[in-house]
């Protein structure tokens, strides 16, 4: 990892300002054709370099492992109340509350134990595509087609919509948002193809991350604070690894043949899983700098919208447009189980912070808790 983290220091600050003269020295091509040609040459070289390190497949190394036989997950709760498609969910750190947002323009805070709705907030927009709990559990953020992220302070006694504040904005819809290790900073991803880092208290923009060539669909922050890196996935079919401090991307992961809808760090922080419109999920390793696993079947034809990993990284949960949640053994690359219960597309899956349960959101307007 050290080699990766050290990389951004070598980037000339001038290139960030778009100074054409310095760029001329940095990358020789003058025209888009020359540059495109050079990209192809470099990609080929990179592929050859990566291939040298690809000495064995993950499922071969994992052959000696015992298969997972004890897997038994049941739908234990169904959270009902949204009037339309549920687009996103996020667990609270208390492992009990869940925030969800929907096409009906509502943000709901649920008590997943009792299935009660503790707060319902009406947003000024429909298609609330993303919501996030702050790490302390004291506030929730959400946004979507309004191109903004609004923060709501959670209190037990009053209408939380009175306590709202806009803290982030983009020039296109916001697809994802996540707090960065504390309640102080928020990272957002947008259809404007950028990600932005915000100071929550002041709403000040701290950094813009430019590099994707199409809509940003998803992001995930490294489980290791020392890493200072995060992931993004985009409609340009690639996932990027970014250095938070420098604002530059440090690794490119390609392989998916369509939009990357979801990226999630492996709990070790050394790898990540992804889900795509190409109906596959993949596992990429940062240190090998390449894809090490692929999870697909001829019978799976529909897009994967969301992925998450169990606490040990052994299981990969993936929600699809065919109403199913497929459970994959990440190491053996085989499907362990299929979770049926939703009656429409599964938009979001997330393992609870203690790893004891899985929550899933669907176009069928419900959220289900599996344990």
């Amino acid at each position, binding site marked *: 990892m050290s*080699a990766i983290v050290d990389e951004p220091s*070598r*980037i000339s600050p001038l*290139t960030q300002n778009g100074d054409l003269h310095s760029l001329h020295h940095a*990358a020789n*091509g003058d025209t*888009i054709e020359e*540059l*495109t040609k050079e*990209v192809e040459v*470099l*990609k080929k070289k*990179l592929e050859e370099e*990566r291939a040298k*390190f690809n*000495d*064995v*497949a*993950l499922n071969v*190394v*994992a052959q000696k*492992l015992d298969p*997972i036989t*004890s*897997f*038994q997950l049941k739908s*234990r*709760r169904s959270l009902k109340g949204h009037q339309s498609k549920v687009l996103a969910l996020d667990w609270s750190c208390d492992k*009990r509350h869940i925030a969800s947002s929907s096409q009906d323009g509502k943000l709901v805070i649920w008590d997943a*134990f009792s299935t009660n709705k503790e707060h319902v907030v009406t947003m000024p927009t429909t298609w609330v595509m993303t919501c996030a709990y702050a790490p302390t559990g004291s506030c929730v953020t959400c946004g979507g087609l309004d191109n903004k992220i609004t923060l709501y302070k959670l209190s037990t006694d009053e209408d939380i919509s009175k306590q709202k504040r806009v803290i982030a904005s983009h020039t296109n819809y916001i697809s994802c948002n996540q707090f960065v290790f504390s309640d102080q900073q928020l990272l957002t991803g947008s259809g404007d193809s950028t990600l932005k880092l915000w100071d929550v208290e002041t709403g000040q923009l701290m950094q813009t991350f*430019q*590099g994707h*060539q199409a809509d940003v669909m998803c992001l995930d922050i490294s489980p290791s604070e020392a890493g200072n890196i995060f992931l993004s996935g985009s409609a340009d079919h690639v996932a990027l690894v970014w250095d938070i401090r420098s604002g*530059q*991307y*440090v*690794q*490119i992961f390609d392989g998916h043949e369509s939009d990357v809808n979801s990226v999630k760090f*492996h709990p*070790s922080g050394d*790898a990540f899983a992804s889900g795509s419109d190409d109906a596959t999920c993949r596992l990429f*390793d940062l*240190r*090998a*700098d390449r894809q*090490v696993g692929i999870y697909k079947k001829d019978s799976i034809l529909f897009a994967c919208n969301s992925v998450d990993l*169990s*606490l*040990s*990284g*052994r299981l990969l949960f993936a929600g699809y447009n065919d109403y199913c949640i497929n459970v994959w053994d*990440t*190491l053996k690359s085989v499907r362990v189980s299929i979770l049926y219960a939703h009656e429409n597309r599964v938009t979001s899956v997330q393992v609870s912070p*203690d*790893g*004891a*349960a*899985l929550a899933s959101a669907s176009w069928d307007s419900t959220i289900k*808790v599996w*344990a």
Partner: protein
Amino acid sequence: MSNLATQRKLVEQLRREGAIERKKVSQVCKELITFCEAHQQSDALVAGFTNQKENPFKEKAGCLII
């Protein structure tokens, strides 16, 4: 950002990425397996609960006092 600037940035990144230190896939796979084995016992979704009473979402049997 213009398409030209994006492509330039990509060229630079690909050059840098060509030079990074890599680990062999066999090595990283072993490490992923080691991590998994070290945490599998505490992974309730893989190992299940040793006792269903520990499952916070287990439905209560019989009548429920509200």
